[in-house]
């Protein structure tokens, strides 16, 4: 086990306070981040070096590599929306995906992940993209659109033809598995 002194302990406490993770996980995350590009990321984070890792590196992590939503996840959590991540973004991502994050936080980010066009609604085109990612394009376009219509019909409480964050949260509350499945073990 490597030492835990990667940044001053007050800084570490700071990260702990801000994110839903614990000390151990935090250190593991830091080393995971650093292992992605050891030559770029310094060990000492006391002076907050401005380091951003490109999406190619983030997406190649074993935890994300085979996830059909990996690009979306990286985009949602990155600052610039392109999937390039600073340490902050990285910690953010895995603390939301940890088991300690509250349901609402998870629901919020899941919503953003499924909202491909960033319009704050999950509309039909977003759903179609989701279906295609979930099924690896094995369904015919008609089937996909039928499924999407059904989903919208079911989950859209306010009849506006698209799912808002509230609709999504309502749905999440009724799908208890979500908490355990929207979770990446690091």
């Amino acid at each position, binding site marked *: 086990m490597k030492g835990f002194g990667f940044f001053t302990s007050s800084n570490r406490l700071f990260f702990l306070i801000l994110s839903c993770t614990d000390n151990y996980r935090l250190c593991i995350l830091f080393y995971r981040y650093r292992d992605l590009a050891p030559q770029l990321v310094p060990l000492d984070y006391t002076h907050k070096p401005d380091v951003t890792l490109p999406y190619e590196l983030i997406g190649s992590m074993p935890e994300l590599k085979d996830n059909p939503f990996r690009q979306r996840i990286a985009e949602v959590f990155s600052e610039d929306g392109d999937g390039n991540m600073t340490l902050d973004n990285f910690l953010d991502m895995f603390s939301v995906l940890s088991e300690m994050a509250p349901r609402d936080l998870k629901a919020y980010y899941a919503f953003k992940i499924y909202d491909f066009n960033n319009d704050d609604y999950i509309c039909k085109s977003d759903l179609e993209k*989701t279906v295609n990612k979930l099924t690896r394009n094995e369904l015919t376009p008609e089937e996909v659109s039928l499924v999407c219509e059904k989903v919208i019909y079911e989950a859209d409480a306010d009849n506006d033809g698209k799912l808002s964050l509230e609709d999504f949260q309502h*749905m999440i509350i009724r799908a208890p598995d979500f908490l355990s499945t929207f979770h990446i073990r690091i």
Partner: protein
Amino acid sequence: MSYHYNKAFENPDYHLSETLEINRRRSPQENLFSYQAPYGASLPGSYGEHDGREQNYPLAIPVASMRQGSEYRGGLPRVNVLSRSPYGSFTDNLSFEPEPELAYNPPSTFHSPYTHSTSNRSEDDFIWRRDRRPHDEIFMTSSSVFETNPVWKEEETLVGNLASMSTNERIKAIQKMPETMKKKREIRNKVLKEITKKSRHRSTHLSCCTQCLQGIAVSFRRFGNSLSEYFHLLQLRYNTLKVIGAEFGTSVLSYFIFLKWLLTFNIFSLLINFSFITIPQFLAAEPNNLSFTGLELLTGAGYFQQTVLYYGFYTNATISKIKNGPSYNMQLAYIFTVGLYFVICFLILLFSIAKSFWRNFINPQAYSVNASKLLCTWDFNITNEKAVKLKQKNLSMQIKEDLTEVNWEVLSVSAKERVVCISINFASWVASLGTALAACAGVYFLSTNNLKLFVKGHRNDLESQAAMLVLPVVTSLLNAFIPFFYSWLGRLERFKTPGQHIYVTITRNIILKISILGILCYYWLGIVAASESQCWETLVGQDIYRLIVVDFIFCLLGSFFGEFLRRIIGTTVYVSLGLPEFDIGRNVLDLIYAQTLTWVGILFSPLLPVIQIIAFSIVFYVKKVSLMMNCQPPRKVWRTAQMTTSFIFLLFFPSFVGVLAVIGVTVWRLKPSEECGPFRGLSSMYAAVSEWIEILENYTASKWVVWIYHNLITSELFFFILSTLVLIVTYIYWQIIEGRKTMTKLLYKQISNEGKDKMFLLEQLRSLQRAKQTPSAPGGQGQAGQSSSYHPSRQPAQQVPDYPGRAFDRNQNASYNNEYPDAAGILRGTGFPPGLERAQRSSGPGMSEAVAIALRAREAAELEDQYDDTYPQP
């Protein structure tokens, strides 16, 4: 420019390096935004720049309105277009002020926008606003809250709220925010600033005590953190769980988590029993002169009879190492430890059930199958490439099945088919109950036969030891093979949903297991206890020991034959069978059965948890290896969370409650054996407590214990009153729940009405727009859009005979729209009445607010119609 103002705004707290850095980093952004910022208009002496901005301005609108989550921005600039227009008049601004804060030019100094006031006040206002503006920008882009002035007001109140919380609450609240780390840091800094400000106001010096306490709290937290580091190092299984989750998903993982939970549960029981019963017994131990042959490990008899493993070995003496020193009463220790253990178990189970129910059964009726199947189904745990592909394939199969099922459901099932279905169901229930009954009868006769063998004599030869093993082997065989029969029965029947199938199979299995256990308990308490054997408790303990060991062996054999051989057959002989799936239900029921045995046995053999710990740890690794080698991920969607809840419930209801009944009968009704165990010579185990109370009555210092015993524990009246109270409270809660259910229904209805309202309004406005393809059309939009920015003075302003002004500004807006049709289109495209959308987005409790805004918007639309009637547009 803005940087300069930031400097001017310097504040002692800005010396915090963090804040300073953030501000510096942001300054280029601010410059960028400053061209969009409508407030720039009030900048003193910036004519040229202002003109430039005037030109840029229309560009800024589309940019702004295209930005994510910024429907509201559209509203703001428009207001400013109006107020800055050369035609702008006093009334315009008044009626369109979205928020009091926007009136950065006080009405007294109102002027044509081109003659800017250079008063200090407006400059101050500007700086003040400027300092916050960028925060809003960041806030906006990172979240989907809307970019209007209320936002920073919101943030202000948020900061205020956070500042008034206690430290722990604050940390929780900040963690819950859906923001980036950077933003959270910023908010936290603000909050800390606020707090220091407050505390400076309150008292200039912090009391020494508070500081001290804070210091202690911080160091305690640090200590806790470093402790957790080492604790994690010990927790090696996490990696195993991760690997399993990566390949098999959450459903299979839930089995292993359950197993781990049971393991920790048993470690806890071991700790309690070992420290309060076994360690004192070691002090008073007698030498063991029986020989150890090795077969005892399997039978639990022989050598083990004279060890701390069984009840019979414990002494009834009062242990004291020093003469006249403090003594330890084994009788009381035994009964209180076991009692306390069961109370703790009860509480743990109760709380975990309650928590599980609370998390997983919030609203099971309204389970939206399709939607959640699509959006909540992806298991982010799975990271193995093959598993991902398989999962995707299964999902697409499932979706296809669902699509065809829609048609299938429509076909009505004929009466004949229904009768056949019901009769098959009935027959399989009869068959399964019959098998359970037959199994029970078999076990019963076998066990009574077995007893004769014990009573006949204690021969320590191989024959009798082998005979001892017959009962557990038969029981385990029944437990292992009848479930296969049940699953075969289940395949014959046709269930409406796969969930029903699972539940029915589980119910049958649990009936079988519990009835076998029940008959065994009857045999132990009714027959073994009444027999004239030397030490019946030890006999029962040995029986349970054997059952556990043999069950464990069968579990290992099961994973060998059930999974390993099945894989060999599935891959070589009958390839069509394919790889086996891990049967979560059956495996979990096995665990529940084993745990029930341990609970029953704890009174007769206090160290039984040790055996169970060893067994469970081995099972954990064997199952893991077998799973990795032989199995494939489950094809069906397994509703993990609900199944886990029902498993914990099963562990509680038939099993733990049944065990409590057995223990109760043993402690209160049965006569302990005369020659062994801590309770020898007493009429019942409980008599130890009543005797102790009698002794206590002689001491005045412990009168209260006696009083409690007589008035609370042994008095029926007390329990009567207690249960009445509990019933009343339960009834009240039930009523509250009913009320809430009604409330939820109403709120759901309200939401859907809300949606209809919105659709109606949108429809109305669209038809309005279509009706008048005249320049005035988008003006209506602008107006209704502003109806969201509610201002108390607005209503009267609309009613004052001020129509020319209104018409005018509508014209103004219209011309602007003509000039930039794109912008107008975008405005139209982005969600129209913003107030409504915002209401939609604001969380559930804000429903009434949403309704109010909707009503207001409708009102505005109606007013719009009236105006149109009164002042027909050219």
